[in-house]
Structure formats: structure tokens, C-alpha cells
């Protein structure tokens, strides 16, 4: 009986999929070996080694070649890759990883705990962005045998923090190609990475393409399916959409196409456009307030600004179905940390906004203007540019005049994070599965000047500093979660940064691809099970 029910379910699912995707037939659903998968690569990086640079631009290539100790499975739970199991001491100061046996580097040398030790101490702790913060209190990695790596910390390291950080910040590099070869940052291996992953690096032609091919000695049986992956460098978004339509590109990750092209390709049966597979790459649109301006140091003004923006209107008319109202610094896709109560929200209410501004003592002048602010939009995303214009127009209605200052990436970071030459800034905050990885530094005071994506708003709050510090070393998972609930509520009450919109990156992929988007950070993952139907 049970069998028939299962069979019936299977059949109905197959029928549903054949209605949705009439080109697919059942016979093709047996995984096929072979094929070349072509990927849109929008912005070239200085190097491709994910042990040295945590960014999707590096993972999209380096993550197929190198592997990390731990990745996330389909449900978003940590699953071993180069590590098979792990264990934390009760005091949280020692975490032991048992490594996978029989794994070799692409050059044939065996993978051992010495590689993990070297990568952790020399790369994660010293060079890797976010890794330097995460591993700040790492004192040593012991290697009692080739398949055991013992991480020793000066202060307690919550195991669940480490496991959620390692998918991004836990890629291992081959010690024998780095040790004693001079400056790690300048090592040529960074541009021709050697790893243990399913694909081997073949060629990088700057400005054109990167090629990787199947690793015949990969440790997972029968993997990978693809013969080759080719990343095509296409900087123009419209050109990338055209190349997808012409069949030259199979996959455009991380919202690489324009919003309008994504919507258009989404209606074409040859492509699938969705946010699936990017849940681990959630981001919020932010408004950062510079507390050095006396107007913005007044909480009533910050709240007034939040109330003055009709966020649902903006989402509906400019971002389509791919965004939703944000509730705080921890996005709703974070099953581990999203609090039941996010604290105060700021619904659209122009009258209330005007009232708050009046109360704060900023009455409109004869022209209707209360004061002017300089707004710096970050240059990485169409939505940010649109949002800046929307902020400008909405705030004009309540008497705040906005001057938009446009710059490129380098200019934006310099002016906001080094010169503090901004009143309002708007950009993205990318959430990395645990608030301690890259979220709390936006709120913790005492960040050194010039460190991008940290609290440079001149906002100091001993209460939130204490919550952040306590949570960072709290080894009890339930208590950590509750501390981060306090953090979110405090952040939403004091509003040093407002996170009005929550988004997940968009993926556009050929309908021929199978086993795609099946993990929360799929674009960055190893693609060992990805295959292409005929």
C-alpha cells in the first residue's frame, strides 16, 4: 500500500513537472555524464583562492576547485566535506575535527591536518576578510595525527558559530604550495588554484574566461558529472542576458542580470529564474545614519526618516516579487537566529514622520525644507540606485532635502568608511548565516577607522556592545539565540542602521541544468552533483 502511494506521488510529481517543463522527458532524468557548463562571470577578482578572500566572486570559481571543512546541506545544516566529524570541549576552547581519509590534492599530494593547520593559522587568521575577526582568539591548531586537527582558542568559540562560518570561511589550501614560497598574497597559485574539489583548474584568460575540468580522482564516487565548467567574463549585464538567450551561457548567478531581463527570462521556458539556492546569501538593503550630524544623532529624526518611506510601494513597483519588507539585521531566512519578536518596526506614516521632525525641533523653513543631507548610494546594484532616488523623493515630501552623491566602489568605501564624508549611506548588508560573522561589526563600537562594513557611524551603545561580546563567546546555543534576539530588538529600537528591505540573490539558469539550487549557498558550492540534460 505504502509503495503504491509513493509511486502515485512520484507519478503526479512527474506529470506536474512535465506540464511545467514540457521539454523534459522521463528518460532524461538519469544523470548524464559529460557536458560543458558555462557561467556568467560579472566581475573579475584579483585572485581565486577562497582561503584568502571571502566573496561570492571568488567562491563562484574557487569553490569548485577548493573545498572547505564544512558546507551546508539542503536544509541549511552543517555537513562535513573535508571534515568528517567534529567535537567541542565543554569549555568551548577546543574544537576537534576528524578529517576525511584518502583525499588528494589535484597535484597528487595527500591532504592532511598539516594543510588545515597552515591554512587556519596563516590564511584564515591573518589574511582572510572576516576570518581575521572570526579566528581572532585562535591560538593554535594541533595535529596529533594526519587526520585530526584540534583548534585551540583563547576564549570560548561557540561550535555552532564556527560551523556556520566555515562554509564561507573554511576553505583549505595546500600547504606544500604556499609554505616558504614568499608572500602568500602574491603566490601565483592564487590565480591557478590547486584544491581537492571536483574540478581542476585549467586556464584563466583575463578578461575572457576561466576553465576548469573534471577531477578524475575526486573522493566522492561518480562525481562530478560535468566534463568542464567555463566561466565567461561578461561585464555588461544586458550583454550577459543576450548571451544566455543565444545559448552561450547556462547560468547567471547572484543577480547578475538586470531586474527587467530577469523578469523577462523568467517567462521563457528555456530558463528558470528564482531565488532558490541563495537562501544562504540573503542580504538587506540598508540606510546608515552618520551620528556626527546633530540632526541624525536625534533618534526622532532617524525614526522620522524610516516612517517617511513607503517600502511596500517601492518593493512592489521596483523590485518585483524578488524582495520583501525587512524586519531587522537578521533576515527571516536565518532559521537559527531569526527572533520571534524583532522589536519596533516603522510602517509608512508621513504625518507621524513630520510630527517627529517637528518635535525634534527641525521646523520647515519658508521653502518647506527642514535640512539637507548628503546620501551616498553604494554602486553595486541597480536596486541601490533606485532606492537612493526613492529616498530622495520620499524625504522631500517631509521637508528633508537629499543630495545624492554617486561614486564607484573605491570612492564609496573611502568616503563612507574612511573619510566619514556622508550623512546617509545606502547599500547592502550581506548576512552570513551567523550574526557574529559579519553582522555585529556593523553595530559594535570601537571599530578602527577605514575598515569597510563596520560601525563607522560614530554610534556608541554600551548595552549593544555587551550583548555582542557576550553572544560571541556564548557556547550554549539556546542562550546565543536569545542574545541575538536582544541584539535585533536593540538595533531596531536605536536605529543606527535601518534594514527596510530583505532580498535574496536571483539566479537565472538554463532549464537543462539538473541538481541545481539544491543548497542554501548553491552558487558558491562545489557543483559535484550538477549535470546537464541533452
Amino acid at each position, binding site marked *: 500500500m505504502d509503495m503504491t502511494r509513493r509511486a502515485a506521488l512520484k507519478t503526479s510529481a512527474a506529470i506536474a513537472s512535465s506540464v511545467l517543463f514540457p521539454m523534459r522527458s522521463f528518460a532524461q532524468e538519469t544523470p548524464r555524464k559529460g557536458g*560543458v557548463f*558555462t557561467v556568467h562571470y560579472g*566581475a*573579475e577578482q*584579483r*585572485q581565486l583562492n577562497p582561503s584568502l*578572500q*571571502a*566573496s*561570492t*566572486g571568488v567562491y563562484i570559481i574557487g569553490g569548485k576547485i577548493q573545498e572547505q571543512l564544512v558546507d551546508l546541506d539542503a536544509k541549511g545544516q552543517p555537513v562535513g566535506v573535508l571534515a568528517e566529524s567534529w567535537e567541542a570541549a565543554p569549555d568551548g576552547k577546543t574544537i576537534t575535527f576528524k578529517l576525511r581519509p584518502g583525499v588528494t590534492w589535484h597535484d597528487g599530494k595527500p591532504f592532511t591536518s598539516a594543510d588545515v593547520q597552515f591554512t587556519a593559522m596563516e590564511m584564515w587568521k591573518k*589574511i582572510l*576578510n*572576516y576570518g*581575521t*575577526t572570526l579566528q581572532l582568539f585562535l591560538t593554535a591548531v594541533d595535529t596529533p595525527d594526519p587526520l585530526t586537527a584540534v583548534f585551540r582558542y583563547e576564549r570560548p568559540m561557540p561550535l555552532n558559530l564556527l560551523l556556520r562560518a566555515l562554509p564561507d570561511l573554511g576553505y583549505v589550501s595546500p600547504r606544500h604550495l604556499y609554505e616558504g614560497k614568499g608572500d602568500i*598574497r*602574491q603566490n*601565483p597559485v*592564487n*590565480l591557478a588554484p590547486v584544491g581537492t574539489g571536483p574540478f581542476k583548474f585549467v586556464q584563466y*584568460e*583575463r*578578461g*575572457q*574566461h576561466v*576553465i576548469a575540468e573534471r577531477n578524475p580522482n575526486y573522493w566522492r564516487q561518480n562525481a562530478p558529472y560535468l566534463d*568542464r565548467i*567555463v566561466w*565567461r*567574463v*561578461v*561585464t*555588461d549585464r*544586458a*550583454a550577459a542576458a*543576450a*548571451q544566455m*538567450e*543565444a545559448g*552561450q551561457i547556462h547560468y547567471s548567478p547572484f543577480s547578475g542580470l538586470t531586474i527587467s531581463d530577469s523578469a523577462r527570462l523568467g517567462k521563457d521556458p528555456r530558463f528558470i529564474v528564482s531565488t532558490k539556492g541563495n537562501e544562504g546569501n540573503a542580504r538587506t538593503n540598508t540606510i546608515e545614519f552618520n551620528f556626527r550630524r546633530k540632526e541624525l544623532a536625534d533618534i526622532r529624526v532617524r525614526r522620522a526618516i524610516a516612517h517617511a518611506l513607503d517600502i511596500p510601494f517601492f518593493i512592489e513597483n521596483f523590485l518585483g516579487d524578488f524582495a520583501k519588507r525587512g524586519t531587522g539585521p537578521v533576515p527571516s531566512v536565518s532559521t537559527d537566529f531569526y527572533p520571534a519578536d524583532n522589536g519596533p518596526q516603522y510602517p509608512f506614516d508621513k504625518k507621524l514622520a513630520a510630527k517627529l521632525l517637528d518635535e525634534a525641533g527641525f521646523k520647515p523653513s519658508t521653502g518647506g525644507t527642514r535640512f539637507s543631507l548628503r546620501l551616498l548610494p553604494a554602486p553595486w546594484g541597480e536596486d541601490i540606485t533606485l532606492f537612493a532616488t526613492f529616498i530622495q523623493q520620499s524625504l522631500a515630501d517631509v521637508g528633508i532635502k537629499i543630495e545624492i552623491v554617486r*561614486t*564607484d*566602489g*573605491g*570612492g*564609496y*568605501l*573611502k*568616503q563612507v568608511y*574612511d*573619510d566619514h564624508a556622508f550623512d546617509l549611506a545606502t547599500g547592502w548588508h*550581506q548576512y552570513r548565516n551567523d550574526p557574529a560573522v*559579519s553582522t555585529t561589526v556593523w553595530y559594535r563600537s570601537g571599530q*578602527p*577607522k*577605514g*575598515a*569597510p*562594513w563596520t560601525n563607522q557611524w560614530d554610534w556608541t551603545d554600551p548595552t549593544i556592545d555587551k550583548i555582542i561580546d557576550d553572544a560571541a563567546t556564548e557556547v550554549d546555543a539556546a542562550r546565543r539565540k536569545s542574545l541575538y534576539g536582544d541584539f535585533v530588538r536593540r538595533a531596531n529600537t536605536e536605529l543606527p542602521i535601518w534594514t527596510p528591505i530583505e532580498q535574496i540573490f536571483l539566479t537565472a539558469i538554463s532549464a537543462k541544468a539538473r541538481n541545481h539550487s539544491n543548497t542554501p549557498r548553491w552558487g558558491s558550492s562545489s557543483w559535484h552533483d550538477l549535470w546537464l540534460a541533452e
Partner: protein
Amino acid sequence: MRVLVLAGRRLAASIPTLILILIGVFLLLQLAPGDTVDAMMAQMGGGDAATAKQLREFYGLDLSVWAQLGNYLWRLVRLDLGFSAIYGKPVATVIAERLPATILLMTASLSFAFFFGLILGVAAARGVNKWPDTLISTLGLMFYAMPTFWFGLMAIVVFSIYLQWLPAGGFEDITVSYTGLRRTLDIALHLVLPTLTLGLFYMAIYLRIMRGSMLEVLNLDFVRTARSKGMDETRVVVRHVLRNALLPMVTLIGLQAGTMLGGSVVVESVFSLPGLGRLAYESVIQRDLNTLLGIVFVSALLVIAVNFIVDLLYARLDPRITAGN
């Protein structure tokens, strides 16, 4: 021989200009907020202040502007273009990798524009104020007015997406590795649309210039003489008119070699070609000063070389120039 001396003198005169341009670009880029380390941080998605300081020291960005400029010029004297911060390679290597695509695109576009501009211009001039002239002139005006990127994208929509005749972008097919003649053909196919996109605008200019100068020369006395001697019309046009009408066209090539490098930024982006134009754009965004200055230097050399060839062509077309009077 005399023309070589003449051209050589002009070559020597362009060196101070070149140095001034380099200094100008160097100082201009100092006005942009942020340096290469800021751009690097933007790309990485974060990093701490200590790393930034370390990187600034590594790239010599902690020195004063004048010290940096001095260092650069001193390296240039030794023909060293420096090291690229984004590419992690010597600038000379980076440029050498990108140069072929740009030179191919420029040569193809210029030849296309020159050849068709000439033919259409002559045809229009010969049928002046009749239908061929009206048709050709209207077309010319259209190509002149059309934005390059728009034409490029439309060409992709028609020829790559609907008809599937030509590739939508890239320099060659990388999913298969062709060699020899097959590869040449493949690259040629990839260059058809970019060449048309970049070339049509210039063709429109050449067409008008050619038509104008043809009409002017056709009315000169020596043409009337030739005709009255009973020479047939084709011979008159080819031997007498064309040769004289070509001079303004050749002048224009020299001028446009420079503008074309600028125009190639758009075309290279739309068609994802790995050329110098896009490299220049990326170097500005990444604040990679060495690479940008290297490109300015090499482009200036290219323009000088084209003008040198133009000088030689002049002499061939108009012997009076060699006479040196």
C-alpha cells in the same frame, strides 16, 4: 627619404606631449576618491584596517603623490611600465594580452569603414541628387546618429538570438578548442558584429567626406580637360578624381585612430571582448594607476604609429609633399 625625415621629426616632437599626457592622467586620477586598496576592499566585501595599511605599503600608496609620480617617471625612463595591482602581473604583460583584440577590432573596423565609405561616397557623388545619392546619404545619416551600444545590442538580438547566425559575444569559442585555420575563422565570425557596430559610425563619416571631396574634385579644370580628351568616365574617376579626393579621407584615418580607441570601450563591453578599451575602464574603476598609465602610453604610441603611416601615405598620394615645398 625626405618624408621619413619629416615623419621622424614629428615622432620626436610627440615625446614631450606624451610625457605631459601621462603626468596629466596621473594627477587627474589622484582627484578620484579612494585608491586601489579601497577598490580591492570593495571587491573583497570587507577587510580590516590593518590589512589595508599593509597593502598600501606594499603598493607604495603610502608615499606622497609627487614621490609616486617621480617613481613612475623614473621607471618609464627605463621602459618599465610597472606592476599591475589588479592583475598581479607586469603591466606590459597585461597590455600585451589585451592588445591583439583591440588591434584586430580597430583594423577591421577602420578598413571596413574606409572601404565602404569610399565606395558609397563615390556612388553617391556620381549619382548626386538622384536616388542613389538620397538613399546612401540618408543611410549615412542614420548610422551617424545611432548610438553604438544600441546598434550593438540590436545586432545581437537580430543576428545572435533570432537568426542564430553569429555569436553574441566573446573573442572565440572556448567550449571547443580550435586550432589553425578553423580558429582564425572562428575569431573572424566573432568579430563580425563588433566590427559592424564600431565601423558603421565611421563609415558614415567617411561616406560624407568622400562624397564632398569627390564633388569638389569633379568640378576642377583638370577633370574637364581629361574628359575633353575623350577619356572614358571610369578612367577619369579612378585615375584622376579618386586619387585627389582621397587625401581628406587619409587625414581622417589618422585622427580617428585615437577616437576609435575610446569608442571601443562600449563595443568591447557589449560584445565581451578582451580589449584595451575595457581594460582601461576597469583600471579606472579599480584605481589601478600603473595599468591605466600603461594603456595611455601604449595608445599614444598606437596613434603616433598610425599618423606615421598616414604621413607615408600622403607622400604616395600627393608627390608634392615629398618635394618638401
